[in-house]
């Protein structure tokens, strides 16, 4: 269960988020769309505290973070343990093999024994279809393979929600499908996911709910059929026409 209330964030004079509210149920997949610079990536990074919010309240599970100066590093860490993150550029640890990347969190953050961490990692790698690539370094993997390892790395921490920032945008079109399939499967299994994407095909496939963010506020939201099929707002229609 995620509850976000009146979230704001500015970079200097630029107000990027002007009061965003969101309630997301366990098992729900929410997809944020919107024009570049609308604040959707910043919203996601606030949920993981890679950016600190100016005001408003973020609740994930039993942990609530009030915006402002009161957020401690320990609280940020607690929030990150609940919200796993997948980046547009994967950001796999370049000096570690696929299996080492996935083991890293369970082993060194959660303090699990090495054998257990490795079992978790190998299990997750086979789940994303990369059992045969465990001992490859990131430089030996394609972009799609790297992104699937990155998803496994985030899942290894058993987060309450998986945050994905443009997970297919850095990939060649023919590599996007392998990542979409993995995300689809995770959605079917009931994982709570919050995505930011320009990939409308992905949004249609996996979203329970689509949120259109514009100018730092939510302009419109609904099921994929509602938002893509019959957008109520003129700016939503304009945006959808441009990306199609």
């Amino acid at each position, binding site marked *: 269960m995620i509850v976000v209330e009146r979230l704001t964030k500015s970079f200097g004079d630029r107000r990027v988020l002007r009061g965003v509210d969101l309630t997301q149920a366990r098992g729900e997949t929410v997809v944020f769309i919107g024009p570049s610079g609308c604040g959707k990536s910043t919203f996601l990074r606030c949920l993981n505290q890679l950016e600190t919010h100016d005001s408003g309240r973020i609740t994930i599970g039993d942990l609530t973070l009030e915006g402002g100066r009161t957020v401690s590093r320990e609280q940020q*860490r607690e929030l990150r343990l609940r919200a796993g*993150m997948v*980046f547009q550029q994967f*950001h796999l640890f*370049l*000096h570690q093999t696929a299996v080492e990347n996935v083991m890293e969190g369970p082993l060194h*953050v959660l303090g699990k024994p090495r054998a257990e961490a490795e079992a978790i990692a190998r299990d997750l790698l086979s789940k994303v279809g990369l059992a045969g690539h465990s001992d490859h*370094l990131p430089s030996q993997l394609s972009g799609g393979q790297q992104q699937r390892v990155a998803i496994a790395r985030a899942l290894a*921490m058993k987060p309450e929600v998986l945050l994905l920032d443009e997970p297919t945008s850095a990939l060649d079109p023919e590599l996007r499908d392998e990542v979409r399939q993995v995300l689809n499967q995770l959605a079917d299994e009931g994982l709570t996911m919050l995505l930011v994407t320009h990939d409308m095909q992905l949004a249609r496939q996996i979203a329970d709910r689509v949120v259109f963010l514009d100018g730092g506020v939510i302009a419109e939201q609904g099921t994929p059929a509602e938002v893509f099929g019959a957008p109520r707002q003129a700016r939503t229609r304009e945006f959808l026409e441009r990306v199609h």
Partner: protein
Amino acid sequence: MNRLARRWPLALAAALSWLAVAAALADTLTEVRSRGELRYGNDAEGGAPYIFHDPAQPEQLRGFEVEFADALAAKLGVKARFVQNNWDMLLPALGDPEKFDLVIAALERTPENQTKVALSRPYFAFGQQLVVRRTTTNVTTLADLRGRRVGVLSASASHRLAESAGTEARVYQDNVNYFSDLEVGRLDAVLTDSPIAAENLKSRPQLRMAGEPFEPGHYAVALRPGDTNLLAAVNGAITALTLDGTLQRIYERYGLWNAGQETLAAWQPPADAGPAKRRTAWTEWRTYLPLLLRASVTTLWVTCAGMVLAVVWGLCLALLRLYGVAPLRWLAIAYIEVFRGTPLLLQIYFIYFGLAQQLGLKLSAGLAAVLSLGLNYAANEAENYRAGIQAVPKGQSEAALALGMSQWLALRRVILPQGLRISLPSVTNDFIAMFKDSSIVSVIALVELTKEYQIRALDTGDYLGLGAMTAGIYFAISYVASLGAGWLERRLHRDRR
């Protein structure tokens, strides 16, 4: 083609070789007279009473050798002109006629020196004097110092005597620092020429002379071996100066006239033992190669220990500079800038002599060398690490933090392993650079490879052969080190395959 045309190259060659022979025969004495000036080489750092700058008039040179040179030139009907040259390199520099005509610089009349240059009759007599601390007892002769530390001037008669008497000879480049080291207790005694001892004890109340001067020796003027006319003129002038009382008047002004000087007038050249065989690196490589190799072990351990210190301390500095709280960060920046912005040589003097004088911190030469090199290179290593750490993409630390790592864990597990790999080539380069820079520590009486080379080259005059041998050792070790560095980089850079 006529015969003349065919012969003219031959004629030209003959003319040229005649010119060359004539130039070689051109007499330095004639040149000195037509120039009206006798140029003599000496080192103004020699110090009182030999040659020194007048404290009241720093432009003015004083000393008994300066006055002797003036008197000698006057006898030849010309003026004397002083030419500054590093004492160690005076004899090699004499080979260049452009620099000076002869050397007047407390040069001892020894068989070794006679193989290298022509020597005049003596103009000064001296003895070897032992100097100890006032608190030292039971030392009156060199034999009392067997196995103990005795400071001597590099390649001097004292050096040979101290070595053959079985003492542990510590070699210095100048006549001042061994007295300082004796005062602070790094040495048990100093063996030096009597005038040096007399002069320096004036300002060092903690030291005293032990026993009488022994092993009499002479200073002579050094000339180029071919300059027989100039040599004869110089010998004649010295005899005249001895007989007419000029030398006595000069030496009395410096309190140096004694029974030894009175024997100068009657001096006769010793029976010629035939030309001494010149020793070179190649004819006696069995002697010199092991000496140099043994010294290279010192160079290696100083470098390795210095590098360990530089690597560890440099990492601390880099982390403080990047992540430290404000006052610590400033201190790290200040340290790095100061150590990078001042000469290594100065730092060595500061650590070895400065700390001992001001704080009583008497580091051994080896420890001071390791400390100086390590502390200096730590500043470079810190900047290497900083560059490496900053070259790690920002996404790497975001990904680590997003996994729930603390800053420290992210640094340890993700940033440092990648950043240090990026800086590895600079660090291995610095190892090789430090290996060569370690030659600078020869200034603090540590006999490493370059110092051993200096000592043996001064002994034999074979700068070229011994230099090639020494350079060969440096190169061989550097090359092996760079091969090792390449292998290490290939192993560690597996993510770059």
